């Protein structure tokens, strides 16, 4: 069973990658990948109180999502959204667990409501006034694959409603980092719509039992392996190439996603 979509816009943010232009140059090999700490822009669309309160995962997800929505030419609130992340908000989790290990166990109410896995989806709604549905998924290292599949199935069920899939993961601080080490923050977003004609790259996706693709560049491959959201990189490289092709993306053990592009 093949699922189809058009990729109308892409967003990317990560170490040494500020946006999709950066990402596509690096992924095409037009310039070398030089990692530098991920810079997370302040979410200007949020009211000042929310802007102060939101965590790194929220800033990452909103930035990546706005990039992809902006490149699609559609308003951000036109999209149903599929947020997907393995870790959620590790900074917040650490602070809460730290407080709960003390005698008074006082945790801040803001920290608590920010601790939900769907905090980025909630802040996205506040920022963009989007009242469409928002998913907030997790499938450990296969979280990008789970999000892509969910988005495509949403599109199949409601072809007139574009879907934005936003994968993001921020590393935990210590001591959880030692148990779940991730490389620097990475986010990727795809603005998807249905129909054969229109802007963007036509893709099909199917479930396969094949080994996920790796990247030839050692630095990019380390990034792919180091952050669940960066499991998207082989697909982003295919989209950046502008060529027809097929890559296999990690989802679950024994169950991967084969992505074919027909620009």
């Amino acid at each position, binding site marked *: 069973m093949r699922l189809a979509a058009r990729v109308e816009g892409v967003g990317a943010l990560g170490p040494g990658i500020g946006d999709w232009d950066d990402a596509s140059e690096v992924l095409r090999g037009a310039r070398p990948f030089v990692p530098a700490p991920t810079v997370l822009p302040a979410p200007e669309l949020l009211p000042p109180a929310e802007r102060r309160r939101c965590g790194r995962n929220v800033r990452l997800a909103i930035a990546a999502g706005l990039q992809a929505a902006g490149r699609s030419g559609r308003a951000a609130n036109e999209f149903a959204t599929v947020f997907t992340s393995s870790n959620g908000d590790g900074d917040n989790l650490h602070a809460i*667990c730290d407080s709960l290990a003390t005698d008074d166990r006082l945790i801040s109410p803001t920290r*608590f409501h920010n601790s939900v896995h769907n905090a980025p989806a909630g802040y996205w*709604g506040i920022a963009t006034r989007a009242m469409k549905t928002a998913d907030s998924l997790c499938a450990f290292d296969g979280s990008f694959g789970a999000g892509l599949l969910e988005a495509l199935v949403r599109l199949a069920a409601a072809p007139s409603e574009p879907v934005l899939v936003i994968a993001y993961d921020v590393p935990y601080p210590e001591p959880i980092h030692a148990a779940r080490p991730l490389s620097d923050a990475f986010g990727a977003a795809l603005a998807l719509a249905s129909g054969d004609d229109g802007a963007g790259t036509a893709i099909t996706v199917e479930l396969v039992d094949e080994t996920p693709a790796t990247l030839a560049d050692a630095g990019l491959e380390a990034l792919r392996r180091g952050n669940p959201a960066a499991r998207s990189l082989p697909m982003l490289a295919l989209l950046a190439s502008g060529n027809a092709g097929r890559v296999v993306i990690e989802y679950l053990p024994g169950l991967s996603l084969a992505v074919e592009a027909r620009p």
Partner: protein
Amino acid sequence: MRPLPISAFTATSCLGRGLAPSLESLLAGRSGLAPCRFETVDLATFVGEVPGLEAHALPPALARFDCRNNRLADLALAQDGFEDAVARAAALHGPARVGVFMGTSTAGILSTEIAYRHRDPATGALPPSFEYRHAHNTYSVAHYVRERLGLEGPCSVQSTACSSSAKVFASAARMIDAGLIDAAVVGGVDTFCLTTLYGFHSLELLSAQPCRPWDAGRNGISIGEGAGYFLVGPRVPAKGQSPPWLLGAGESSDAHHMSSPHPEGLGARLAMESALAAAGLEPADIDYVNLHGTATPANDASEDKAVFALFGDAVACNSTKGATGHALGAAGALEAAIALLALRHGFTPASPGTREIDPQLRSRYETALARRPLARVMSNSFGFGGSNCSLVFGAAPGGSA
């Protein structure tokens, strides 16, 4: 959406292990809430605890998944012949054609909270026994269920706070409609942890008494533990069976605030309207609404505005959280199971804890158990981040029972 048969289901909460004791509690109008004695928690509050989890062991081959949440996942899976029903579906369609979509809010976070009490004094490191992937990560419960049932299809966790395990029904229906799978195990599991108990306390949303949905004196939630599972699909039910049906699902976002509902219930109304539209039904076709009804002043006021705007005072509704407590990420699944029991056995449940209905609230809220035939029921689940989901279930797939 196309109606989808629910081939098997089960639920476990403070009302009982499995459907028979749960039904008995519901028909008796009993509440499972009791003063909180959980772990080292020192809060004046009532909770709906599932007894016996401390002593429950996972199968040895899956011991790496051991945590309170997966223990409840395991215990609940063993009730009502649910595993056998899934095994039959996997044998018939192939294990790769059966998906797993689970909702949870906090998964195994309790394990991490406890590990933080045992950090190395010199290095700050967590104890070597800390198991992140299988006993903490948000995905761990779906991973556990997939391994336990030997399934090989698509699998993920939906974690949208208190709407999580309602939204998984919609995901499964789309996956089946798209032809990726023939059937799916959907559900939700959430268990106590200090983050939610102390967190709701910090927001001043935790009641010191058993919660009182829709009551004039309601003053916050009671947290409960719960698990519910549903085998949805295949499209055509087995010969001779007359399963309940998922008729529609509606989802929306408030786009308003992280922890307060939209004051006019706008997102809630959108979710209910789109669930009705998906089912091809009118408000008058619904016989009972199982409300989200958490018993916080703001939540119930907001939901009442939405329900009244859509149904007026014509449709019986209430919340069963006075019986079960608020099972958070498992609330959708637990209340879907209650909705299906109500359909199957022809009753609308009581609302234990609710004494005097808030005169400001205008929906037709019923506090007493009533025996009545039901053809279609709606179940509402709304969560932090403004995430809303409404489901419509029916005794039959068509427009009339």
